């Protein structure tokens, strides 16, 4: 058996172990009846990836994404002009001001307060879709960036060894607040955390400069900046232009903390999915049972369990990626695992995007509707500014069965995009098409694994 074939068989076996069987084992069967069995979705998704992989191997013999060209858009200079930037910045500052004020003066009930819905649904989820579709929207709207650009800065050299570690920690902190702390139910606490973050960003920008800080240490600047690289939009030298989707990811600078950041992106959504299922609920109770005899209160123990779960999911994703990289390194080519780890990390960004998109799609289209009635009375003063205060959530706006199809489509498209990015990078890295394809057997295993995990996590919502 050749080395390449052995690698392919190993990757296929690994993929089969984590693929449809895992998806089949849990709550998929408990979801609403669909025209075809849900396990078939998992197999079909895996099959699409495998077919895509071999299609890429045959039909994509030279790097294309790495060499794609940027073209300026007609009117691109006007669209990226300073007055428009200032306008977007002003909108961002206004939204932040309304949100923070609402958190303090609005209803103490999360359901009736603008702040949790805006922060946890529209800012956190809506901007993901907006970034992928329209580019770096957050950069335009970022309130602290807008304010920072008006303030003086010491412009000290940013410590390169920090890389994107501050952003990774910031993202971890935000997801901890969202998934573990329970502060989402307390608008005032949530906006206090937001205010602390804004203050930290303003200080960082003052010391190290707005642009450097935004692209390295601002969790949301980095987060939405990475996702925006999937889109076709890119601004260069003050001009808005277009380029093929995904191609900007190939120019991602490989800084310390970048891998950790992407692992946090995927790992935290993984935990959110896991935490909705019976498996995690059972595990969590076990942890609580261990901690409560030690004098820890049940709720504190549950938060400790969730914190551990969050960390474990990030570690799991990191370990899985590392496994694929070690496999890829084993095929030859004199590339160290560390080098490959950084070289292929950009391919996981579409996966991170579709994890969020698939996982929170229904959250956005259903619970997100709350912004309609909250906008009419953001401070709970009995206003009806837009005449929408009596509105509710229309659960018929999207068919329940359709959600599952959309989620699977997101997952498959994202993973095919990831495979494509990885394949393109391998072609450039190895310069030998056969070696590049061999190295990608392992990445195929990683992608099928992530696909299966994504589908299984989605199934957990009904478990």
């Amino acid at each position, binding site marked *: 058996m050749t080395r390449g074939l052995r690698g392919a068989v190993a990757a296929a076996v690994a993929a089969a172990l984590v693929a449809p069987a895992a998806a089949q084992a849990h709550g998929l069967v408990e979801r609403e009846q669909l025209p075809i069995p849900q396990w078939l979705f998992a197999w079909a998704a895996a099959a699409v990836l495998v077919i895509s992989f071999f299609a890429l191997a045959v039909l994509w013999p030279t790097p294309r994404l790495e060499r794609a060209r940027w073209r300026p858009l007609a009117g691109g200079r006007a669209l990226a002009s300073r007055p428009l930037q200032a306008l977007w910045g*002003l*909108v961002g*500052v*206004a*939204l932040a*001001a*309304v949100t923070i*004020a609402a958190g303090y003066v609005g*209803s*103490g*009930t*999360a*359901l*009736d307060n603008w702040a949790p819905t805006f922060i946890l649904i529209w800012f956190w989820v809506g901007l993901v879709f907006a970034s992928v579709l329209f580019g770096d929207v957050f950069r335009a709207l970022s309130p602290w960036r807008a304010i920072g650009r008006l303030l003086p800065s010491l412009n000290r050299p940013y410590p390169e060894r920090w890389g994107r570690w501050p952003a990774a920690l910031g993202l971890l902190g935000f997801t901890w607040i969202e998934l573990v702390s329970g502060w989402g*139910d307390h608008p005032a606490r949530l906006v206090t955390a937001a205010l602390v973050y804004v203050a930290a960003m303003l200080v960082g920008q003052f010391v190290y400069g707005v642009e450097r800080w935004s692209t390295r240490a601002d969790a949301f600047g980095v987060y939405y900046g990475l996702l925006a690289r999937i889109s076709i939009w890119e601004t260069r030298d003050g001009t808005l232009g277009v380029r093929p989707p995904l191609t900007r990811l190939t120019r991602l600078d490989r800084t310390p903390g970048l891998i950790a950041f992407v692992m946090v992106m995927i790992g935290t959504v993984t935990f959110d999915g896991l935490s909705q299922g019976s498996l995690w*609920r059972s595990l*969590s*109770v076990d942890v*609580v*049972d261990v901690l409560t005899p030690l004098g820890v*209160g*049940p*709720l504190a*123990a*549950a*938060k400790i*369990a*969730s914190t551990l779960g969050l960390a474990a999911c990030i570690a799991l994703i990191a370990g899985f990626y590392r496994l694929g990289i070690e496999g890829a390194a084993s095929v030859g080519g004199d590339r160290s695992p560390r080098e490959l780890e950084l070289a292929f990390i950009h391919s996981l960004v579409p996966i991170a995007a579709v994890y969020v998109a698939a996982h929170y799609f229904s959250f956005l289209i*259903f*619970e997100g509707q*709350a912004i309609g*009635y909250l906008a*009419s*009375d*953001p401070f709970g*003063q*009995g*206003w*009806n*500014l*837009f*005449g929408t*205060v*009596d*509105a*509710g*959530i*229309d*659960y*018929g706006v999207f068919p329940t069965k359709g959600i599952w199809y959309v989620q699977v489509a997101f997952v498959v498209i994202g993973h095919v995009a990831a495979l494509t990015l990885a394949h393109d990078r391998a072609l450039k890295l190895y310069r030998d098409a056969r070696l590049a394809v061999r190295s990608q057997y392992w990445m195929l295993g990683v992608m099928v694994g992530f696909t299966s995990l994504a589908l299984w996590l989605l199934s957990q919502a009904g478990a």
Partner: protein
Amino acid sequence: MLLAAAVLVAGCGGSAPSTDPIQSVPTDNGIRAKVREASHPTPASFESAKGKTLQQLAQGLVGGPTVALATSDLPIATDRVAFGVIDSQGQAVYGQTAVYVAPAPNKPAAGPYVAPADVLLTQARYRSKQAATAADPFAAVYAAQVPFKTAGPYSMLTVTRLPDGRVIGATAALKVIASADDPIPEVGQKAPKVHTDTLASAKGDVAKIDTRSPPDDMHAVDFAAVVGKKPVALLFATPQLCQSQVCGPVTDLEVQMQAKYGKRMDFIHQEVYKNNNIQDGLRQPLQEFGLQSEPWLFVVNAKGIITARLEGSIGINAFNAAIESGLAKSRS
């Protein structure tokens, strides 16, 4: 900028949010108009009993509909009779309604006791997914104040004046029980100090103690820990497993009331069945309250005295009055 714009728009007179519960009723098929008419019945619109029997009062009425009682047994101390009127197609009937009661159909009746329709639907934002996706939800429940003098079986005749001019009648049998036979704590009594399920007792797993989708946040405090210290609204309901099918709307109502009164009163939602499984029987707090059905609402003032006790379908006005009773008496 938005803030300024918002204030400006407010100053320019953006339309005020609705405080009329009837605005929550859909306008389809004229239901809202019917419920509005049904919510203000006048005694003069109904024939006086004047020693007539129920049989005599029923003569000339159009038959066909049935009465769905919202309560099981009626303790004599409780004079609220809540019910729905259902036509032969299974649809709720709304119109000005009154009730007559008598120990038997051929005995002299008492009445009319008007039964205003009380809206069951919350403001849209407070509806659970179960309520928001329910087909043909009941929009309102009738409730009449009937002063029963003695315990025992009663016959009841409901008379509803429909907007098209027809007057329809429906009958039901009631069982009024003596206070001594009522195992459930009554208004005026001290509330049993029962431990209710909390997020802490569920070890952080809200799914264990709440079948509403999405779960509400009325599991922060244990009833035993707050009763006698602060007014409490304790609701026993199971939105997903409800046998009476009205737990969902009633729980949504409590969520709406919590938004309004949450700073002055603790709101508790206690699920009904152990392990959220009907076969496993009732949870301990329901057993301690002597409950055999759902939903039940108990409002307890700051002194730990029950000021309101409501079973089954509870409309907004009744729920609101119950909450106010707990607050009013705790001030005194």
